[in-house]
């Protein structure tokens, strides 16, 4: 009896607790449910918002203009083919002024104000380095198109990925054998004095030394510099090859003044096309480049063996066979970099589809889906060439191109294999928690 008497009391208490729990659950359910239902209804039509961090002003403006055109063309293509998971893609563009501080603010705006699903599209390495930590804190997947080695080096976080463009370390490593064997072993490097340039300095000098070459001098130039002749006397007289890479609004001045300085007695010259991205190769003062070599991320001039995919991509973005805008032949594209936006958006689409992405709650699933990717064949989605993505380091690897200036055009001279660009992993982001 006593037990019997006690039992109901206990049961009652339990029941109360249960009822409370159910009530609380129901209340929570009731409060969540309408929202959920609304969301489920909206699912078929609400756009996937992609925050596009674009260098519309500042020293990266020329790149920004073309990153914008490429991104819009890729989004249009995706939308014309039914969007992502049946939802349209909406590009929310914000100018970061090519400024790291502004970059972090833009990322914050994407996450909290625009309610973007992801952030995307940053190029300049100092802006990426300034923005990525904030993206990590806000748990916003951040797909950069930057070339910097900072992703693969482990410097950033699990939310930052670079699946659509190769990094400087792999590029220069693939260039070093060509430079050392074809052009010369005594190299002088000229590079911009910030993270991107330092990647060149560190990884190219290591790579060329591995080829039995030697870097005689490393000349760093501030990316905002406007006059360059004063730097050229630092080039040692024994230099066989000048290795140059420059960015910013004054790149044309840089290359012109290099030509003026050397005159007809120039050493061999190997440049990264960054030094002349968005610049017409026919500009007066660039004649001396005839016979010199350039790294290209993607050949600017349509080559004899142009793939159908490059043809399609060129047309979709509005670029002619000389790498300039269809509407203005003087408006030269940043062809070696902007394909990264196109490819990254298609990777985001593939990742969201693989993850069954519904909304911000699935951000971790999206990252895991992209991390699981490996080989990406040459295709309409990857017009620059096949890629191999490393999910641990969040970095993609791909073919690199070396072109020679012939009659004022860049003609493809050598294509590296993907294997030429590989290096051992330096980090494993998949071990970081979300």
């Amino acid at each position, binding site marked *: 009896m006593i037990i019997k008497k006690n039992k109901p009391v206990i049961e009652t208490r339990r029941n109360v607790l249960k009822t409370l729990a159910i009530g609380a659950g129901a209340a929570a359910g009731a409060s969540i449910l309408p929202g959920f239902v609304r969301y489920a209804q909206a699912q078929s039509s609400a756009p996937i918002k992609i925050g596009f961090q674009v260098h*519309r*002003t*500042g*020293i990266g*403006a*020329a790149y*920004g*203009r073309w990153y914008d055109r490429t991104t819009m063309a890729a989004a249009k293509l995706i939308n014309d083919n039914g969007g992502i998971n049946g939802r349209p893609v909406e590009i929310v563009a914000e100018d970061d002024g090519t400024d790291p501080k502004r970059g972090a603010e833009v990322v914050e705006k994407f996450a909290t104000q625009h309610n973007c699903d992801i952030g995307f599209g940053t190029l300049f390495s100092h802006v990426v380095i300034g923005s990525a930590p904030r993206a990590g804190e806000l748990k916003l997947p951040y797909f950069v198109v930057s070339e910097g080695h900072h992703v693969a080096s482990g410097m950033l976080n699990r939310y930052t990925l670079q699946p659509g463009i190769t990094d400087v370390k792999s590029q220069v490593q693939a260039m070093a054998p060509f430079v050392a064997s074809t052009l010369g072993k005594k190299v002088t490097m000229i590079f911009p004095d910030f993270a991107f340039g330092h990647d060149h300095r560190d990884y190219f000098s290591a790579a060329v030394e591995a080829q039995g070459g030697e870097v005689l001098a490393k000349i760093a130039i*501030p990316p905002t*510099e*406007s*006059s360059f*002749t*004063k*730097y*050229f*006397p630092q080039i040692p*007289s024994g230099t066989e090859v000048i290795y140059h890479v420059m960015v910013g*609004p*004054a790149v*044309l*001045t840089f290359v012109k*003044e290099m030509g*003026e*300085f*050397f*005159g*007809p007695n120039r050493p061999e010259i190997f440049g990264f096309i960054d030094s002349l991205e*968005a610049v017409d190769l026919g*500009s*007066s*003062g660039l004649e001396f480049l005839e016979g010199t070599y350039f790294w290209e991320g993607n050949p600017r001039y349509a080559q004899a063996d142009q793939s159908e995919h490059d043809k399609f991509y060129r047309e979709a973005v509005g670029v002619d066979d000389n790498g300039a805008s269809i509407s203005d032949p003087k408006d030269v594209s940043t062809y070696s970099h902007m394909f990264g936006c196109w490819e990254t958006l298609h990777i985001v689409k593939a990742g969201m589809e693989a993850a069954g992405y519904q909304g911000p709650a699935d951000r971790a699933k999206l990252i895991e889906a992209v991390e699981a990717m490996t080989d990406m064949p040459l295709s309409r989605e990857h017009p620059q060439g096949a890629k191999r993505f490393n999910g641990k380091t969040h970095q993609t690897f791909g073919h690199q191109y070396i072109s020679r200036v012939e009659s004022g055009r860049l003609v493809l001279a050598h294509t590296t294999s993907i294997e030429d660009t590989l290096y051992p992993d330096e980090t494993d982001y998949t071990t970081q928690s979300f």
Partner: protein
Amino acid sequence: MDLGPYLFLASLEGAVTAAVLALTAVGLSLVFGVMRVVNVAHGEFFMLGAVLAWWVASLAGGHPAIGFALAVLVAPVIAGAIAAAADFIVLKRLDYDPENTIVATIGILYIIQQTVLMTYGPDARPVEAPFSYRIYFPWFGYSAYKLFVIAAAVAILLGVWAIMARTRIGLVLRATQLDRETAQAFGIPVERVYALVFGLGAGLAALAAVLIVPIQQAHYLMGGDPLLLSFIVVIIGGLGSLSGTVVAAIIIGMSDGIISVFFTPTLAKIIATLLVAFILVFRPTGLFGTRSA
């Protein structure tokens, strides 16, 4: 490279810097000397000159020399007219109060910069040099146009000197500089003189930019460096002293060229800024300045 040619190249580079700097800084110094206005927007008038030069040159077409010649004539006049208008609309209403005009010219700086960004765009655009001849010394090649810049700047500075020293306008300017109220009492239209001086100062900066734009390129952010260097030069030379400004421009330009070539451009800027600090501490009136009344 041997020391001799090395020094030769450094001096050439320094002379180009000095020439352009002297023109820009004389404009700034003139405005301060006559109006007692610290024009923070001076670098933007420089930029405006370069952008207008691009605009004129791209409209002109034909041989690059035609576009360049037109730019030399048109760009400084338009930049000067804009400056004169800014003086009339803004600075005059502030009664040229020293503190207020600094803030106002900062505002003008942003208005000009952002207007150029919105219209001309964020790109760097080249203007072709009137001639592309190169001189090949035994050790290095050098653009003949840069030597032309030096010569042109010297000629323009001589012209400015002649105007100030030998013409009636110069007399009026000097009178206004010496004592505004007395000048007014003697029937000098001080307000119009001020507008003229502000326009002239901006015009000189714009002219310097027209000369430099075939070497560099026109870009909406290019006004920063000339502004900083002009201030350095004007402070070292003595605020309001034109001859002091020219001497200081030669010192700063040459040392910038030589230090940049032998060491680094950053060191050149550090030394120039340090020099300003020492001048302010030990000789606040500058090398050639006189104590203002």
